[in-house]
């Protein structure tokens, strides 16, 4: 019998702790598929953050090291420079990458560190209970913006991908979403390209992924998927933001 669907080899046989409808589980799976397809499981080192994905090492069957909140890009720099044969990726939330870790992220990109960043934008601090993130939509209510985010008081949703695209050292920045089968396929393609760039030694690649958090958005899973299209991707337009590789996405 022909096998048409199976668990990626790089994904451990473990039950996800993520909420139903959470984007993290989908992103884990497609990242592992990419690691399998590129044949890099035995030289990949992942750097997960504090955040809902803090236990990513229970799921990814690759070497992993926990980073302090926001410091993933610096930790990845240390690993990659010490052992350039490795394939190093960071896995970072929006609080992690776009607030506390902005400096480390921007400078790793500017140095053109040959690493891959998977950036999960769910517009909230998931793990700590749904506080406002730098990517929270204007008007959106969170536990720390109970009256809705007001740009004058709380700033505007920050577009890290566009910012990171500005620096010389980044070679590829794309924003994708995981809220439909078609989008998930695109997201996987982008992740694959971001890893391929590292294999080819091209520098810093980042894939921003709009990722549903039904729990803190206080929506059903289906409604959360719709909300990514109707609201989030208006503020954060999907597509390639920068690509200096001269290559189309892998396969």
């Amino acid at each position, binding site marked *: 019998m022909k096998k048409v669907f199976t668990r990626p080899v790089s994904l451990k046989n473990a039950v996800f702790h993520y909420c139903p409808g959470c984007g993290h589980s989908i992103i884990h799976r497609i990242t592992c598929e990419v690691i399998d397809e590129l044949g890099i499981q035995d030289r990949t080192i992942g750097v997960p953050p504090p955040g809902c994905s803090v236990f990513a*090492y229970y799921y990814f069957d690759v*070497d992993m090291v926990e980073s302090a909140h926001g410091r993933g890009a610096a930790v990845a720099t*240390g690993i990659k420079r010490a052992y350039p044969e490795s394939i190093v990726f960071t896995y970072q939330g929006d609080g992690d990458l776009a607030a506390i870790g902005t400096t480390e992220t921007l400078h790793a990109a500017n140095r053109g560190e040959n690493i891959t960043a998977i950036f999960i934008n769910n517009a909230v601090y998931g793990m700590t209970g749904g506080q406002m993130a730098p990517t929270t939509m204007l008007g959106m209510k969170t536990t720390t913006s109970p009256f809705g985010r007001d740009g004058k008081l709380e700033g505007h949703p920050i577009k890290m991908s566009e910012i990171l695209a500005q620096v010389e050292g980044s070679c590829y920045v794309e924003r994708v979403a995981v809220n439909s089968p078609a989008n998930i396929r695109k997201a996987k393609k982008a992740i694959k390209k971001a890893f391929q760039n590292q294999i080819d030694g091209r520098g810093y690649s980042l894939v921003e992924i709009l990722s549903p958090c039904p729990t803190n958005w206080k929506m059903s899973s289906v409604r959360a998927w719709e909300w990514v299209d109707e609201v989030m991707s208006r503020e954060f337009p999907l597509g390639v933001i920068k690509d200096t590789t001269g290559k189309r996405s892998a396969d």
Partner: protein
Amino acid sequence: MPKMLMTGNAAVGEAAIRAGCQSYYGYPITPQNELTEYMAANLGRRPGCAFVQAESEIAAINMVYGASVAGVRTMTSSSSPGISLKQEGISYLAACQLPAVIVNMSRGGPGLGSISAAQSDYFQSTRGGGHGDYRTIVLGPGSVQELADLTHHAFELTDKYLIPVIILGDGMLGQMMEPVEFSHEAPEVPPVRQDALRGAKGRPSRFVRTFTSNPPDLEEVNWSLFRRYQLLQKNEVMWENYMTEDARLIVTAFGIAARIAKGAIKQARANGLKIGMFRPITLWPFPGEQLKALSKKTKFFLDFEMNMGQMIEDVKLSLEGAGDVSFHGRPGGVIPTPSEVLRVITRIYYQKGLS
């Protein structure tokens, strides 16, 4: 090997390279810039080695963390305000039991403080420094030669015990020039730690983490750390007794303060006063038993530090009431002269009726 004339900062850099340090991450701050510059010039372009001028001390210590995870000998350096920023990373290194060497050419504080030599970071260094229940090994060199020797020793210790090592120097040690001799050649092939994360090739995947949702797991980690701390206390304390045999008053001092005190003690001896000195070289673990042993012969101690009295707490804890401890301190980056210390020694000697 001929002696070389070097600044303390450069000597640390050279000793680190000779100890097989393969990656250095730093951020400019006075009075340790010569060390970062030495590594830029002498480590960065060596095959297989890495030098990065990081965007902050926070980034630098996290690069160290990454390099240590990948199994290479690694170091960062800074001075007081920068060391404060590194504390988060040091806590993570301690928790993950990752080796690293951190150099603090300390300066006056608090705040931005002064750029002159001070010993105000003794508490921060010897009490863990960051959050959580941990210690680091703390070495307190007193000369450029000792900076070089202890740098080599630091790499050996951190690899052996998997505990980060702080070299607590100061701005004066870092910037003064002295002849120095190196007893090691850089290894042809620098060592890579067995438990490094370099990809799951021919073995199951591994992870390094600190977070747990199960407190008893963390308690195990704490216990394991503390068992090693006990071993350190037993096996690795270093100290110097200077003219303590017949001393009626013993000065306790570390690092550059001990160097200044030595000048004063020589003069005091020439004046006929029986003064000695106890100098801890490992500031943590503190050579408490060795100090206590001295109280069998003398009851009078004078603790001298370039701060408002930090090591004195360890001195008193070690003596357990068995000594009368006076104090002289100069904080803020003021560097006292041997004649000032001599005056204090002489006054206390006569006040306590030791003549």
